């Protein structure tokens, strides 16, 4: 592809051949009005708003669909262009309701904006306006189809980006309507993006409808807490209330998209399910108390148990979506007490290779590199459920490349997969061994030991294909899925995957749970390693041991192990049996009311500062968008106060940035970069099992509590009637404040520590 020189409004610009006028103008920051054009969608050229004046053309031409040519002179503002644009604007407005004062899009409406520039003040259209019946397409998206301007962005999004044709344009001419099949609810897990794509108020967010006007809201940059990509979000809030979450563009990570859970899970931290005050259980009854009482009680109990049962009987479990700072302080607190029972790998089952693990599990290549892959092997990965935006990326690669999959159980992909090998979990190892065997056959220089190990394995044709595709394509990779870690032989899976990658030369990637597994590793939220992967001379208990063998006391950092871990039943038994459970949680309700002894209200994800490290090792820090509800406080502050009350060293941080800096310094000074070294086993393993996968909105505590997500088609996958009813009941009630009000703290050291929790907003 060469470049040509064109001129737009007298400015000379370099342009790649084949690009459209509008792209060049956009790159140069010159604005051409448009509605149907969107840089991430195919060109439809149907709105005709972008008409410009091009030398040698008698007609105005659409800038979005007119390729550049050398020497082309474009005028976006000549009389010819302006007349054309004005006339299109007039056509667009004749059937538009112009109900801006009651429209949720008001203030951020592309039609409104352009109309200001190109519309006429007086309408000469005196005929009756078209009215279109609204359609119910589910709990996430509100429709007001009379406002639709038929740009078809939403339709193209479904067809092109998601690969699911759900929206369509039915009827024809003036009767054309955008909608789903009759009144079908939309099913896609990334459907909310059509809200952002819609240039007018035809598609708006149902949960935030009428909650605030665009210009009343403030915006804070955030990072989504739901998966290992580190999706960039923008949190919109007004007077301390989160109103909605929208994407923040990051070409390298999420492009311009977010998943529905990224968009709507905030519902769970704004609702009446929130814990707003500390609580202590006394004689089986929950009592509200002040922070001082609660924290002193925690310290006393932990010290008591340390004395009576030994510190090795205390442990901490941390959510894999906790921030780096929370992870770091939790492990520091535990280790300060003398316990190494710390883990954030809640769904992992096989810990046998933990000592060989890399600094942190993740991808050896960038997220955006995925779309260029010519061959990709998915190993037990269910991207749509686990990392929906990664599925969109990978889908792009299928335009030129090939995606192959070996997985256990049912996996529905939104792109073509071939071969697509589905086996019971117990046959997964054999499948991967077959691929290794195929690679050994195709390969010249394989060690005798390795060859010997696989000598009895006869690869199938599918395995041969997978092997050769990965080998012959320079741009090839494999991804071990998030739930592969739940497999009881995950260590062997990872070794096989690494071997496939080594033999074929394809890039290696592992997808991890939560938003911050990488952070958990780096922070040292592990029983066998300190932060920055420093080897610990004592190895504490991992999740499995803590929950199956049982401890006397647990610190639960924003996790509900009976739902979040792979040891649901064991967790229930052990937590109930234990002497003391401290629950740090934003939520007031849950099974933990039965087993916990103290509830410490912590900030929700929109209310705290912190850092997530994504699957590629990218550190992304964010600040709090709003103040925590009631007396709830950012968890890092609670941990800091606890550390000080326990008289542990090194808990003097005044900001989360300081904590971050401390971890970063250790991380950057590690010379031992710690690449994983997976040791060849002496024999091949077989069998193994994996629990049934959860529906995507059951995977974390936020989505579990988001009413609209639970009501959506994906949420109803695992429709739990009682839970929904409970959510409906709790969220339709006005927020009830507990009558117990907080006692002011006086000036003891403990008091001033807890007083620091009173600071208005997180730094």
């Amino acid at each position, binding site marked *: 592809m060469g470049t040509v020189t064109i001129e737009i409004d007298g400015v000379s610009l370099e342009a790649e051949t084949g690009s459209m006028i509008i792209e060049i103008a956009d790159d140069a920051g010159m604005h051409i009005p448009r509605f149907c054009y969107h840089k991430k969608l195919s*060109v*439809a*050229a*149907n*709105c*005709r*708003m972008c*008409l410009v004046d091009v030398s040698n053309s*008698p*007609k*105005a031409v*659409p800038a979005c*669909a007119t*390729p550049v040519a050398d020497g082309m002179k474009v005028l976006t503002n000549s009389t010819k262009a302006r007349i*054309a644009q004005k*006339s*299109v604007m*007039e*056509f*667009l407005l*004749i*059937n538009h309701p112009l109900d801006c004062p009651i429209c949720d899009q008001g203030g951020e409406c592309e039609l409104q904006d352009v109309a200001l520039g190109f519309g006429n003040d007086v309408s*000469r*259209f005196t*005929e*009756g306006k078209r009215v279109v019946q609204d359609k119910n397409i589910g709990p996430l998206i509100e429709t007001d189809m009379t406002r639709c*301007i*038929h740009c*078809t962005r939403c339709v193209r999004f479904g067809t092109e980006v998601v690969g699911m044709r759900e929206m369509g*344009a039915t*009827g*024809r*001419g*003036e*009767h*054309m309507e955008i909608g789903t099949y009759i009144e079908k609810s939309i099913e896609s897990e990334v459907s909310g993006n059509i809200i952002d794509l819609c240039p007018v108020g035809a598609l708006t967010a149902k949960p935030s409808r009428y909650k605030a006007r665009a210009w009343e809201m403030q915006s804070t940059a955030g990072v989504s807490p739901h998966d290992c990509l580190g999706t960039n979000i923008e949190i919109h809030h007004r007077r301390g209330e989160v109103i909605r979450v929208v994407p923040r563009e990051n070409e390298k990570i999420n492009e311009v998209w977010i998943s529905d859970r990224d968009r709507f899970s905030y519902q769970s931290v704004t609702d009446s399910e929130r814990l707003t005050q500390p609580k202590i259980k006394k004689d089986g009854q929950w009592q509200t108390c002040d922070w001082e009482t609660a924290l002193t009680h925690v310290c006393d109990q932990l010290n008591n148990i340390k004395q009576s049962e030994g510190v090795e009987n205390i442990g901490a479990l941390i959510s894999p979506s906790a921030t780096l700072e929370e992870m770091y302080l939790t492990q520091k607190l535990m280790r300060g007490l003398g316990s190494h029972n710390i883990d954030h790998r809640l769904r992992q089952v096989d810990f046998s290779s933990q000592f060989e693990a890399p600094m942190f599990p993740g991808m050896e290549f960038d997220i955006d590199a995925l779309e260029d892959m010519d061959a990709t092997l998915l190993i037990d990965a269910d991207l749509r459920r686990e990392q929906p935006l990664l599925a969109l990326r990978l889908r792009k690669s299928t335009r030129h490349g090939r995606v192959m999959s070996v997985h256990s159980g049912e996996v529905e992909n939104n792109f073509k997969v071939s071969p697509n090998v589905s086996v019971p979990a117990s046959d997964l190892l054999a499948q991967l061994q077959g691929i290794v065997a195929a690679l050994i056959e195709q390969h010249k220089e394989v060690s005798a030991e390795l060859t010997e190990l696989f000598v009895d394995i006869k690869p199938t044709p599918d395995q041969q294909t997978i092997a050769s595709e990965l080998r012959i394509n320079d741009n090839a990779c494999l991804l071990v899925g998030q739930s592969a870690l739940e497999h009881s032989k995950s260590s062997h899976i990872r070794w096989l995957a690494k071997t496939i990658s080594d033999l074929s030369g394809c890039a290696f990637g592992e997808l991890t749970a939560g938003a911050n597994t990488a952070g958990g590793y780096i922070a040292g939220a592990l029983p066998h390693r300190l932060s920055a992967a420093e080897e610990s001379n004592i190895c504490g208990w991992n999740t499995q041991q803590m929950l199956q063998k049982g401890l006397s006391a647990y610190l639960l950092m924003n996790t509900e192990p009976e739902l979040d871990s792979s040891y649901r039943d064991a967790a229930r038994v052990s937590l109930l049996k234990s002497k003391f459970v401290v629950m740090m949680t934003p939520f007031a309700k849950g099974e933990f009311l039965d087993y916990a002894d103290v509830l410490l209200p912590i900030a929700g994800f929109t209310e705290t500062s912190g850092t997530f490290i994504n699957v590629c090792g990218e550190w992304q820090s964010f600040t709090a968008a709003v103040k925590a509800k009631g007396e709830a406080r950012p968890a890092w502050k609670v941990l800091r106060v606890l550390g000080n009350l326990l008289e542990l060293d090194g808990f003097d941080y005044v900001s989360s940035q300081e904590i971050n800096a401390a971890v970063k310094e250790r991380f950057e000074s590690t010379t031992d970069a710690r690449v994983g070294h997976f040791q060849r086993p002496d024999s091949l393993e077989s069998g193994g099992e994996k629990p049934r996968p959860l529906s995507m909105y059951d995977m974390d505590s936020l989505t579990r509590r988001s009413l609209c997500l639970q009501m959506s088609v994906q949420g109803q996958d695992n429709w739990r009637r009682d839970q929904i009813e409970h959510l409906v009941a709790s969220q339709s009630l006005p927020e009830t404040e507990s009558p117990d009000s907080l006692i002011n703290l006086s000036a003891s050291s403990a008091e001033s520590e807890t007083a620091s929790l009173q600071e208005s907003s997180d730094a």
Partner: protein
Amino acid sequence: MANEVCFRTMHLDEPWTLEAYKSVGGYKVWRDILKNKTPANDIIEQLKTSALRGRGGAGFPTGLKWSFMPRGMPGQKYVVCNSDEGEPGTFKDRDILRFNPHQLIEGMAIGGYVMTATVGYNYMRGEFYEPFARMEQALKEAYDEGLLGKNILDSGIDFDLYNHMGAGAYICGEETALIESLEGKKGQPRFKPPFPANYGVFGRPTNVNNTESYASVPVILQHGGQWFLDLGIPNNGGTKIFSVSGHIKQPGNYEVAMGMPFKDLLQQCGGMRGDKPLKAVIPGGSSSPVLPASVMMDITMDYDAIGKAGSMVGSGAVMVIEEGTCMVELAARTAHFYYEESCGQCTPCREGTGWMSRVLHRILDGEGKIEDLDNLQDIADNIMGRTICALGDAAAMPMGGFLKHYKHEFEHMIRTGRRWVDDQQNAA
């Protein structure tokens, strides 16, 4: 000099049979090509010489169009026949399909050979039940005779032809909408470029021609391009079928020489119905601007002359209008048609056609305002040239014609609420 090309079987009994077609020399050209492997370029040269222009409406030179197909490109290519025939006033393709289907088959097969397309589709509008039956019968005969299929007559040449049916949508006559429709979608035109010759049916190079265009080819090749050209006048080669309808004694299809004076054509059709005076003519289908009698009576029927007079040959649909006809009603009916048939994707067409139609019907209802007339012209101008396909233009152009020549009828109705023609008659 009539019925020499597409209607050359018309004088026979059951002209649609293979027998009948063979009796006028049918399939001779095809057999020769198969035997001699006539160089494709020679055929294209003959077509260029003939000055055959597309009979679907746009009048693009057929030889030139065929030369655009990337013949050397490997992979599947298609020839598609546009038998959608939807432009109001046009009914010639229906008669070719009903009465001379084999000639279309032969023309398409030759097209397939020239453009190295081994598959053809004949897209007929959904309402063409009888033509479909005739075409199916003819296809069967042609296959049975070994004139279609794989390795035809041992020539090593393949050509398969299928009939496809639409389901009621004028827009599917637009070639890219037709392609979408053939692919099983709504008939929404595609933005061009890319043109069908590069990206057509199923994303493959495709040539789309009108029924009459394809059906002319065998005869042109039989007698030579020069012969065809000489039938007509320079730059307007051959004969053309004019579908004459309206206030005429003998409405019907007339395959006559290009360049024939309109007067003569009128006479061939038996003159005006009831011998009323001619008021106006819509010379090329409802999208062509109307021309008053005074203009028409001095004009020849060819692309250049009608173009110069401010209208178009279009699809050759000649609608003859007698004195006493209300032009406001014709304009409103025309506007209604484009409003009904807009596919809906482009803003100016979707919104503008409805707007024009509503204003005109309001005028008919006696609720017109004088500024409506300027607005109508303005709406038409604002649609013109600003849409993906030419339906927008087709809706805009006739409005200009009506307002240019008959503005007084509109003004009269707005002012008095009555038809100008009635008041004229009463006054007389």
